[in-house]
């Protein structure tokens, strides 16, 4: 962009600066360039009216405003009033260095496997996971045999059979994970009126995603002085409003990991969040790999297309146009 500014814009600026800076320089210039006595005011004029200065000043102002807004989250010089306090929005979650955070990073599948164990042993008591079937675990965190065994531990109602009756049967790979409550009303009744949301897409459904859920699970604390929390609720600064109907569920050594990882509450929170993140984005690993391929291929194609364009245009760009003024025709 800047390289497109007419060179005169830059030159006139430096001339102006020089004439201000030293009087002696001005004097020598004045003697040698008397002919251009009016040039100083002309440069000033062009500096104030030229298109280049208009563009640079506009860019500078827009840039400062954008920078300010990015830094402080609101426009400068525009007053704002809020009826709610910051606590009503919940504390901003910390950005954690997830193993799958980078552009090239897959999920940590050992962590997904541990997270599924935490889900099954802890969260599944209250939260459903509607969109995940046993078969989805195969090739992600469990072998087909393991997933089949897990499914068979659950009884599903199937039918009707040829007498028109429903019957119970052990689960199959194609069954979905069983919900803890028969319906929403039962779930509310079991949790003091609050509905434990389905966790299949919870990472996508909350601002802050994985960071938020991790902060929520590890963020329980005593309410600060002056904050009243109802009997059956808990205080969690990350939850909007601060009062949450889910009590703290993760305590050290609540589960026993088969791979020997120490089950601290933050380790379990990390694992369950990784698992839930996989549940919300099962295509994640493949998507990132395809992304790399697409970026490589499309940038190569783009470079080629630029090259081809330059090649095709060389004829036009290199031609010379001569202007032959018309002969005086004397008409």
């Amino acid at each position, binding site marked *: 962009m800047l390289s497109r500014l007419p060179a005169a814009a830059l030159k006139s600026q430096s001339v102006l600066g020089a004439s201000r800076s030293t009087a002696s320089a001005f004097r020598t210039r004045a003697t040698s360039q008397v002919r251009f006595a009016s040039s100083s005011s002309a440069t000033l004029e062009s500096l104030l009216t030229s298109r280049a200065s208009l563009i640079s000043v506009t860019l500078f102002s827009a840039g400062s405003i954008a920078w300010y807004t990015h830094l402080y989250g609101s426009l400068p010089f525009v007053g704002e009033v809020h009826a709610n306090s910051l606590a009503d929005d919940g504390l901003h979650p910390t950005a954690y260095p997830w193993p799958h955070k980078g552009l090239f990073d897959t999920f940590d599948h050992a962590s997904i496997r541990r997270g599924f164990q935490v889900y099954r042993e802890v969260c599944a008591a209250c939260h459903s996971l509607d969109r995940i079937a046993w078969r989805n675990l195969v090739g992600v965190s469990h*072998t087909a045999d393991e997933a089949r065994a897990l499914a068979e531990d659950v009884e599903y109602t199937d039918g009707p059979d040829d007498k028109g009756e429903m019957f119970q049967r052990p689960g199959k790979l194609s069954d979905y994970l069983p919900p803890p409550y028969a319906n929403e009303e039962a779930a509310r009744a079991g949790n003091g009126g609050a509905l434990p949301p389905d966790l299949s897409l919870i990472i996508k459904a909350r601002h802050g995603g994985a960071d938020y859920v991790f902060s929520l699970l590890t963020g329980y604390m005593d309410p600060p002085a002056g904050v009243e929390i109802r009997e059956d609720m808990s205080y969690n600064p990350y939850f909007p409003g601060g009062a949450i109907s889910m009590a703290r569920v993760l305590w050290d050594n609540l589960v026993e990991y088969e791979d020997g990882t120490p089950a601290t509450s933050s380790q379990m929170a990390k694992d369950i969040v990784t698992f839930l993140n996989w549940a919300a984005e099962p295509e994640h690993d493949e998507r990132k790999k395809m992304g790399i391929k697409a970026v490589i291929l499309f940038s190569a194609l783009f470079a080629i297309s630029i090259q081809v364009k330059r090649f095709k245009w060389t004829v036009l760009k290199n031609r010379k146009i001569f202007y032959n003024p018309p002969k005086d025709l004397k008409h």
Partner: protein
Amino acid sequence: MALANAFYNTFVKRNSVFVTSIFAGAFAFSVGFDVAVNNFWDRWNQGKQWKDIRAKYIQEDADS
């Protein structure tokens, strides 16, 4: 120039050869490109993917 002529004479002169080499070239490139990206991917994510930890959980004659 000699190279360009050789290229023209071997690949471009006959349309049948031209089209065939484009198809074969596309096939070879896509295989090679996938292998290269997958190698990088697996090295970058070593130990994290299911295929890296699968051996710990597989029993004899299991099918996944």
